[in-house]
């Protein structure tokens, strides 16, 4: 009996270990398949035409600059919304709100994170876009700004939850020290708590931005899908097209193995690398901050 027990234990342990390692495997597989289908694009079209400013694959114009600029404009707009609102809400929840309020706000913000992006896109088309068109007197309501507003909302839960964690982990003694010196709650938040949680808040912003760059359905539905090179903040008020939306809109219609197909995978590769970089930097910021906290406390 003991023998069979130890065999079972051995096999289960190995299975569990393999499951743990599988995360590495999946990231590897994802990268491998993006490379496998995306790299051929580089031999089929030369780099200069990839960096062209025209995206019109039907006539073999596959410049991805307009798409990159579209993603940047929309994301930048989203960040301008998500950062103040996200951090403001996080500060409110962790520093100001009474307990009962916190118990209501936290699940509510989580709920926002759970809303399907198509539902937000759908409301964007029906409610937000017509409103913005009339309000700002634009030819169309389907603009980068519409996308930014919705994306900002989508990024808020990420920013709130990470930033709130960071604020929460600031030792109480810091705040009490400031109060003892006669600082108001408000001064304490600005001069003590937020600076102490700086790196965590930074991580929150980065992860929020990462979330925004990767969002697909909402932007595809509300940004008007015009692959025009965005040149300035003025582009906020005109239709644009992001990298994610391009893949989602066109992948269904291309022939497998065609140049267009490979270029779409190439764009996916670029997105993958962006998210990899953002996340690695974000997690190393947190890591370093933890190290420092440990040093201070020990």
């Amino acid at each position: 009996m003991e023998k069979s027990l130890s065999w079972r234990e051995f096999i289960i342990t190995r299975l569990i270990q393999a499951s743990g390692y599988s995360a590495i495997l999946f990231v590897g597989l994802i990268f491998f398949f993006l490379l496998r289908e995306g790299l051929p694009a580089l031999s089929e079209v030369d780099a200069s035409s990839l960096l062209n400013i025209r995206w019109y694959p039907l006539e073999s114009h596959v410049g991805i600059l307009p798409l990159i600029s579209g993603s940047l404009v929309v994301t930048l707009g989203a960040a301008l919304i998500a950062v103040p609102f996200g951090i403001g809400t996080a500060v409110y929840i962790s520093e100001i709100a009474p307990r009962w309020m916190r118990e209501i706000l936290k699940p509510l913000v989580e709920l926002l994170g759970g809303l399907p992006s198509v539902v937000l896109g759908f409301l964007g088309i029906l409610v937000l876009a017509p409103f913005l068109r009339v309000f700002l007197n634009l030819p169309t309501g389907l603009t980068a700004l519409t996308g930014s507003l919705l994306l900002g909302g989508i990024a808020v839960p990420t920013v709130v939850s990470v930033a709130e964690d960071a604020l929460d982990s600031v030792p109480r003694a810091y705040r009490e020290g400031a109060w003892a010196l006669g600082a108001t709650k408000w001064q304490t938040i600005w001069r003590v708590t937020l600076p102490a949680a700086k790196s965590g808040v930074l991580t929150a912003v980065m992860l929020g931005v990462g979330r925004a760059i990767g969002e697909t359905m909402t932007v595809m539905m509300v940004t008007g899908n015009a692959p025009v090179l965005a040149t300035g903040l003025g582009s906020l008020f005109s239709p644009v097209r992001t990298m994610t939306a391009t893949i989602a809109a066109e992948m269904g219609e291309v022939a497998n193995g065609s140049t267009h197909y490979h270029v779409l995978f190439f764009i996916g590769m670029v997105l993958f690398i962006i998210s990899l970089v953002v996340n690695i930097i974000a997690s190393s910021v947190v890591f370093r901050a933890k190290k420092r906290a440990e040093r201070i406390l020990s």
Partner: protein
Amino acid sequence: MMTKFLSRNRHTVQRLGFIAITMVVIVTIIPIIGTIVFILVKGGSAISLEFLSGFPHDGMRAGGILPAIIGTLYLTLGTAVFSVPLGIAAAIYLSEYAKDNQVTRLIRLAIINLAGIPSVVYGLFGLGLFVLFLKFGTSILAASLTLSIMTLPVIISTAEEALRAVPQSFRTVSISLGATRWQTISRIILKEALPGILTGVILGLERAAGETAPILFTGAAFFLPRLPHSVFDATMALPYHLFVISTQVPEMPIQIQYGTALVLLVFVLTMNVIATVIRSRARARRQW
């Protein structure tokens, strides 16, 4: 510094600051509640037995959305079949077995990265690996597998947190009574961590149920006049259907659009509420 702290206006500043930040919170919260209420109100009138149990006809401009509802159920279950055991096992590895070394750090980094990869990139990956390379075709199987990998980081991280919250002393005592590591986990740790794990699982599946981009090229069908017969069939799904009828079908009756959005929202919100309830009830009951 001191003089600033002591300045006379600081209480006015504080009051203004609190007002400003409260406004920020209100502006954040109102749209959330607004969205939900708006869709509940607008979509409510579309809901009927026929709508929930009928097939679409007249180019989807009439009839019901049964195939989309069933499809989303299938995809959610399919995702659960793969991601729940794998995710929990990975969480067990990280919380109970892994040593603090280079490999473990790499696993954690991989999980963080999985969580950050854009959903449409998961779609590309699913297309490349499951649809084309493994030749599953555009199918429930391929879409579920794609969604599973996307859901994995959510399940792993919440389950790991739940496992770690179980007091260390239970492990020590169990081992000291002659239990093996796995006996300790299966008889005590998993049971105690169950509510937390369940919360994570539901939140992960909630995300999978609402996603469109990963299934666009891996399993979603524009229109199917029947229910899928096997895991190798493509399927309609609520989020994709909403996308289709709100952007791809001209002269689509607005009622059906709101109705579909409502059903999707209820599907997702129900999961969210269940998760929240499980979590808060477990917290209240916990004896350690």
